[in-house]
């Protein structure tokens, strides 16, 4: 880990004896890639004809059903980093990969119990709507937008870098061109089709990814009488019983807990995930969609675990390491070994679709923070016509699309899985504490929310900079100021403590008096979409 793995293997594959066709352009992958692009642009065209105002652009006209939104949530969440990264982690270290897989799932029950329904009933387009519900609009929204954009930026870097390497690998295109293609196609979905097109891209991707993972796991397990235990046994026979138990990946217990906290609470602070709850008509549908998402994502990670072991036994660890030291190509190598180049092409196209869908969701969330939170509510004080909102949202999307391309090219050498872990840590520290307290605590205040969101963002970024990953691995220093690789265990409690202390030291009677209305709205919603007037403080 920590290496720009895919590039590295291109270098070594030239010299090493590798029997994989991974380094040649795969015609089926290219065909699959074009079919997906044509199909998704067709959907975008249809969606564009129905996208006339901000309600359509950000929230798909609140027309998405529970199952659709469940699939789209899963599509927004199951990134190529987890599909390829976790499978690779399992293939090289066995059991340890399961720790990550579980961490990515257990955030969903938390979203369900604490966040989803209140969020749907209180807000309109972004989670800042909820935090600002009874607090002063401008200061809260500025802080929330900073937190959201920090998360979106880190997450975008991870996805764009992953996309660039994957396409470079499969199609033999230069890295920069690959990043530009992904950015441009994604931008077409978002600019013209808004949330409706993005949702359908995510749904299709979700189904493709599940079908692909099921087929691949089925083909791998077919060699073991469809008995996963026989597969694990074979792995244990070949590589020693150590692969079935905890290994060296989690060497520091405190770091393990810190990562666990970030993964569990970060899901409930990811702006692109939270935004999806506004696409459904009511809180009950939001609830249904989380239950579908939790089921789908759980199945997906269990399958990924089996894929990893399948690759370990059927492809072999040496072969996987030969192709990529980080193991990121394990799932693709397994596809080629059990299904031939055609199946490899299919799985590669699925991985590509996966990245496009996640990047589109992220761009939309960033655009909402820029235009809905900053432009409409801070600069225009909530007074913007529908046409103006839509125009600003599109300009913001275009800016973010360009930014995504630039970041993708600038951070080419960054490790993908690590950046995703950081995005979760920032989301858990910057967004989650303020969001939870604003729904839950009568005494919460504007200053408390501001202080919490800024402390969460700054402390997580600072601790990441002081961590061994940056200080030792990147800068080459002998030791790091902060001993942990993930900041969560410090920055999340810190954001909570700062929020509570600041709110208690500077009480805000107006915010407390708005809490009764918030409590009513949490349960009853409004019957109709919440309007801007509801957000304006008297």
């Amino acid at each position: 880990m920590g290496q720009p793995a895919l590039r590295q293997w291109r270098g070594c594959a030239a010299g090493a004896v590798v029997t994989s066709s991974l380094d040649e352009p795969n015609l089926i992958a290219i065909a699959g890639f074009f079919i997906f692009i044509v199909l998704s642009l067709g959907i975008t065209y249809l969606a564009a004809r129905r996208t006339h105002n901000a309600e359509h652009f950000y929230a798909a006209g609140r027309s998405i059903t529970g199952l659709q939104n469940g699939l789209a949530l899963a599509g927004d969440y199951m990134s190529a980093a987890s599909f390829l990264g976790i499978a690779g982690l399992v293939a090289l270290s066995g059991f340890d990969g399961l720790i990550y897989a579980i961490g990515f799932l257990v955030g969903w029950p938390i979203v369900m119990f604490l966040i989803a329904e209140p969020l749907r009933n209180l807000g309109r387009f972004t989670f800042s709507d909820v935090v600002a519900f009874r607090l002063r609009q401008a200061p809260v929204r500025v802080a929330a937008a900073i937190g959201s954009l920090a998360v979106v930026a880190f997450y975008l870097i991870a996805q764009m870098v992953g996309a660039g390497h994957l396409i470079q690998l499969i199609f033999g295109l230069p890295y920069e061109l690959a990043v530009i293609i992904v950015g441009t196609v994604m931008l077409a979905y978002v600019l013209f089709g808004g949330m409706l097109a993005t949702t359908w891209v995510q749904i299709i991707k979700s189904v493709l990814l599940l079908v692909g993972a099921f087929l691949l796991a089925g083909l791998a397990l077919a060699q073991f009488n469809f008995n996963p235990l026989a597969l694990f046994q074979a792995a244990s026979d070949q590589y020693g019983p150590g692969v079935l138990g905890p290994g060296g990946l989690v060497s520091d217990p405190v770091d393990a807990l810190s990562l666990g906290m970030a993964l569990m609470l970060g899901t409930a602070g990811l702006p692109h995930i939270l935004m999806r709850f506004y696409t459904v008509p009511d809180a009950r549908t939001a609830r249904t969609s989380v239950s579908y998402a939790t089921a789908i994502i759980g199945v997906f990670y269990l399958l990924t675990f089996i894929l990893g072991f399948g690759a370990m036994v059927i492809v072999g660890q040496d072969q996987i390491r030969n192709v990529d030291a980080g193991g990121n190509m394990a799932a693709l190598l397994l596809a080629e070994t059990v299904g031939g180049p055609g199946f490899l092409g299919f799985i590669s196209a699925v991985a590509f679709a996966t990245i496009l869908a996640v990047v589109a969701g992220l761009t939309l969330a960033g655009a909402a923070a820029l235009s809905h939170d900053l432009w409409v509510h801070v600069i225009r004080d909530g007074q913007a016509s529908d046409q103006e909102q839509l125009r600003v949202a599109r300009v913001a999307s275009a800016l973010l699309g360009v930014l995504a391309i630039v970041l993708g090219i600038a951070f080419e050498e960054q490790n993908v899985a690590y950046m995703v872990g950081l995005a979760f840590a920032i989301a858990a520290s910057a967004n989650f504490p303020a969001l939870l307290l604003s729904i839950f605590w009568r005494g919460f205040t504007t200053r408390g929310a501001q202080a919490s969101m800024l402390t969460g963002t700054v402390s997580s970024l600072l601790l990441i900079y002081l961590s061994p990953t940056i200080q030792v691995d990147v800068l080459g220093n002998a030791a790091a100021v902060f001993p942990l690789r993930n900041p969560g265990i410090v920055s999340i409690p810190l954001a909570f403590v700062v929020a509570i202390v600041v709110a208690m030291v500077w009480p805000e009677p107006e915010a407390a008096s708005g809490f009764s209305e918030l409590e009513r709205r949490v349960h009853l919603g409004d019957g109709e979409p919440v309007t801007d007037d509801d957000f304006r403080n008297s």
Partner: protein
Amino acid sequence: MNSFDELRRLNAARWRIAIGLTITMMVLYFGFILLVAFRKSLLATLVSPGLSLGILLGALVIVAAWILVWVYVRWANRHYDSGVAALRGRL
């Protein structure tokens, strides 16, 4: 009992369930992480050929997440929604 008291009761019931389930999920997950961190050899024990205690417990954490979500959805669909429906239009 007036409508505001009913709302307050519904609110208290919703948060009681939500917080109880959240704490259960956290205990299970962090319990698993702590075992991974401090009881490595225990988790490496084989329960049956090919199945270590660690893999079994890990899979069970995922199953537990499903069950907790199912418990919440069942409660909300049966009790919470009818409470909300009874209050709608009166508040």
